[in-house]
């Protein structure tokens, strides 16, 4: 693929509408969604449950197609999944018959990576998420948070340029969550990836993103996009700054007081 010009967005969503059949009627999960994500941008998405966040992510992942409108990645219409897009699912989606290690190696194996390198890379990402001791355990022996960490390691292992993450840290304790947030930001700034990160945690949305996309439900749509002008790295200092709390209040208001004026 050729180098994109500086202004070309990595991901663009244009006029996307998604309708699901529901008891003989139509349920509008997404309506008129326009969104552009620049190369190397980190965009977080928040919104009430059922507003279509996962639906939007599935469309970008190539697992579902819009009823109308279009989704483009790198200038080309999305047509199925691709190795440049890594996905972390809300429901972990680990293969229950494979150990943690084999789960993490799955994508490397399909990509034809040799055994020794596969093992080494899996090892690296397993210890990154702190599952060293459970490398040979089956998913049924893991807690919810550990399953989620395994799913993260599995997606990271194939080293995709674009990460589509659906509430990846949702089931984690506060400490692990902060550790993985920092880890994610480190990798993101070191290797420059384009990230779309869904969360229901307003703090998390602000601390991670360049921009926060706030969605609304019925029909699912983008309600407001808030720029986060906080410097990286987002240190503790940044987390405690008045600018941060002002931004999180803005996002909070946009998410939880959607009926009030704020149309864009």
């Amino acid at each position, binding site marked *: 693929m050729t180098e994109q010009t500086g202004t070309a967005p990595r991901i663009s969503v244009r006029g996307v509408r998604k309708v699901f059949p529901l008891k003989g009627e139509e349920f509008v999960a997404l309506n008129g969604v326009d969104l552009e994500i620049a190369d190397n941008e980190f965009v977080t998405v928040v919104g009430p449950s059922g507003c279509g966040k996962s639906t939007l992510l599935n469309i970008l*992942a*190539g*697992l579902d197609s819009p009823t109308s409108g279009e989704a483009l990645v790198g200038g080309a219409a999305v047509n*199925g*999944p691709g*190795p440049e*897009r*890594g*996905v972390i*699912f809300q*429901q972990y*989606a*680990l*293969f*229950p*018959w*494979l150990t943690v290690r084999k789960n993490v190696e*799955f*994508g490397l194996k*399909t*990509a034809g990576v040799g055994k020794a390198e596969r093992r080494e890379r899996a090892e690296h990402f397993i210890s990154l998420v702190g599952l060293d001791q459970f490398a040979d355990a*089956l*998913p*049924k022996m893991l807690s919810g948070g550990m399953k989620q960490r395994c799913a993260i390691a*599995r997606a990271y292992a*194939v080293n995709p340029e674009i990460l589509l993450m659906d509430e990846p840290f949702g089931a984690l304790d506060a400490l692990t969550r902060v550790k993985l947030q920092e880890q994610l930001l480190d990798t993101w700034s070191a290797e420059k990836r384009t990230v779309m990160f869904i969360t229901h945690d307003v703090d998390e949305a602000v601390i991670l993103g360049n921009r926060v996309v706030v969605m609304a439900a019925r029909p699912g749509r983008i309600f407001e996009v808030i720029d986060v002008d906080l410097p990286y790295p987002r240190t503790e200092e940044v987390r405690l700054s008045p600018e941060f709390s002002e931004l999180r209040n803005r996002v909070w208001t946009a998410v939880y007081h959607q009926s009030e004026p704020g149309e864009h």
Partner: protein
Amino acid sequence: MATASLTTRRGISPSARLVVLNIASVVGGIALWWYLAEHGFNFPTPPEVVEAAVDLWQKGLLQEDVMASLGRVLSGFLLGTAAAVPTGFLMGWYVVARGIFEPWIQFFRTIPPLALLPLVLVLMGIGETPKIFVIFLAAFLASVISTYQGVVSVDRTLINAARVLGANDWIIFSRVVVPASTPFILVGMRVGLGSAWATLVAAELLAAQAGIGHRMQFAQIYYDLPTIFVGIVLIGVLGLIMDRLLLAAEEKLTGWQERR
């Protein structure tokens, strides 16, 4: 007395208690049989049955019958399963295959395989083929539906997870669909083996020159009750052993499942 003190003693695990009860129940059952045989019922006593078994063994008939029956049931069962698994996969994977196979499978499923024996005997003669064929059918029909159900109930998100990790159709099939439907297949195989075994013995009663069923049929003519009992016990014990072997395989192959 010993069992009573064992079961009440603290620290004995529930499973050990269960085994003790199982053994006690079997011993008690045999004692009851013995008692009834001695008191007016027209049964052979346990020693008479053992004697008949030893006698058959010494003549080499017991081994011959067991080998004949097991040979038939295993070849029919293996052929039936080998045909059922790919058919079930095709039905789960391709609508066309489902459309073609489903009416036939649903139709033949309602017919006891044994009911086809007269037809099969006429068409295939009285050698081994017709017997193996009805066993094949019994095993096939039991396994094909459960394999199909296994394939269609594979969790969609697992397939999606494999797709975003770069899996093509073949990889999704071999590394996701096959393992995910293994529990279903094994359940189908167990049902299939049970059904194959039952069908076999009945088929041997009707038409065979060797086999456990044939031995019992032969004994019936001479009013040889101990031999009939030997046959019944053999059928039960062999059936149980085969079922336990498959259960062990099932536990080994599907131990990854979360049981709630």
